[in-house]
């Protein structure tokens, strides 16, 4: 049983099928790439899988240790609670909060405090608060950001903002992580660092990562398997080597006849 099973998923906006009849399976601890030309429906697919949009047809099933959950009508926060997290194409950090607070909010989903213990400041509140803080700092340390704890997210350099978004997503302790164009707007050196970072997450956290990316060198470098979308439809899947040779994919990227 795969970790996530997407079965004939379709999303219509008015008359337009942004995602049409897409079926994919994600296994545990895989690193999968999702590629395709602009407007192919990649981000829409992410939004369907994380509850931002409701699917028109088809189903999304999450399987956690044999316990199956249908995600179709679930709200984003409930899907996040299940262990599915994401980043956004256009960075969506909590800009006026500190780096530490951003990460702490990520941790919140699995570590809810009682309102009464926090308002009354019971000892349990302080204990939990200290523990969460410690774990956040530990997480930030892995990504060399422990020196920016009190920096406002908006004041971070671009590359670090992208990185913080990934850390925040990891703080929710996901089993499945969607990264939406993490290398967008990065220079080659930053992209190289990011490539290492994604590898590191994949190895150290042992989670499944799905990556939307336009930077082909990055995708071919880190992904074990690729899915290719065009006009909302899945046109190919396979290893990077297979996709490189795939005629339909080449056609989709270069356009016209071959």
């Amino acid at each position, binding site marked *: 049983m795969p970790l996530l099973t997407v079965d004939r998923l379709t999303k219509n906006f008015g008359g337009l099928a942004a995602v049409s009849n897409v079926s994919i399976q994600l296994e545990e601890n895989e690193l999968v790439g999702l590629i395709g030309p602009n407007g192919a429906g990649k*981000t829409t697919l992410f*939004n369907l899988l994380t509850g*931002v949009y409701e699917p028109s047809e088809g189903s999304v099933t999450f399987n956690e240790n044999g316990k199956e959950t249908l995600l179709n009508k679930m709200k984003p926060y409930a899907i996040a609670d299940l262990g599915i997290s994401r980043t*956004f*194409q*256009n960075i969506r950090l909590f800009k006026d909060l500190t780096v530490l607070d951003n990460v702490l909010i990520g941790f919140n989903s699995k570590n809810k405090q009682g309102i009464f213990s926090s308002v009354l400041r019971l000892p349990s509140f302080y204990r939990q608060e200290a523990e969460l803080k410690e774990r956040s700092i530990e997480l930030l340390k892995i990504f060399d950001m422990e020196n920016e704890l009190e920096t406002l997210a908006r004041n971070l350099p671009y590359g670090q903002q992208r990185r913080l978004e990934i850390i925040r997503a990891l703080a929710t302790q996901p089993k499945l992580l969607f990264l939406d164009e993490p290398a967008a707007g990065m220079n080659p050196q930053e992209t190289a660092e990011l490539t290492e970072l994604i590898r590191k997450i994949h190895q150290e956290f042992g989670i499944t990562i799905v990556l939307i990316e336009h930077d082909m060198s990055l995708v071919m470098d880190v992904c074990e398997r690729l899915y290719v979308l065009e006009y909302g439809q899945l046109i190919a899947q396979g290893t990077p080597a297979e996709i490189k040779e795939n005629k339909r994919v080449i056609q989709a990227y270069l356009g016209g006849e071959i």
Partner: protein
Amino acid sequence: MENILQQLVNGLSLGSIYALIALGYTMVYGIIKLINFAHGEIYMLGAFIGYVFIQYFHLPFFVALVGAMICCAGIGVLIEFLAYRPLRGSTRIAALITAIGVSFLIQNVMKLRFFAGAEPRAFPQAIEQKMIEVGPIMVSNIQLLILGTTVVLMLGLQIIVMKTKMGKAMRAVSVDADAAMLMGISVNQTISFTFAIGSALAAAGGVMIGLYYNSIDPMMGVTPGLKAFVAAVFGGIGLIPGAALGGFSIGLIETFVSASSIEGLSAYKDAIVYFILIIVLLIKPTGLLGKNTKEKV
């Protein structure tokens, strides 16, 4: 049946006034996303300027109406220049508080004895009220005048917005001020023009309501101002047809509730208006004509 028709006419006259004020609200909102709380005060000033023109200069009604519209257009532009323009880049809520400050200021300056004083004044009967029988119902000539003038002004506005160069600039700035500027549109001029038009419409409403109710005072703008804002939201704020629709709807609802045969209901007329508004918003969160724009993720 006669009663319903009668109330329809009454409701439309009242609704015209709300619509005229709501148009100014909605245009300003459309272009700079500001809830211009001082707009009700422009309406009040319009009524007082019309009063001065008729009472002291003995001008005919329509001349006074146009005069008040021109004066208020100037006042509107001045307020925007002095109070709102410095805040263009800051938060919307800061601009909102400034607008409330301007509203307080105008009210209280007008309350000074040197200007109008706090007491209500009788608006001169520049046009004598006559009742006309139209079929089974009675319509006053002033109601017809209000309806007629409103329709003419709305058509005029529609022409300005859709057919003139300035109208095109207004639409462009409301969609994207920065892009409009890059296309060579003077954003400041366009915003000033919007305030001028909106203020003139409110002034027309003020002068006509003076004639209709015979009484004006410095606080007369507060309630209609608020209701017009409600009307603008009701129709979908930022949309010119929405403001007209909202204004007429609120006028009609109020009139029908007041005239309802259910005992004691009329005391709740404003509550019912707000209740319907909330229901409309829950069903259509951006007003009757508003488009639901989903944030791009």
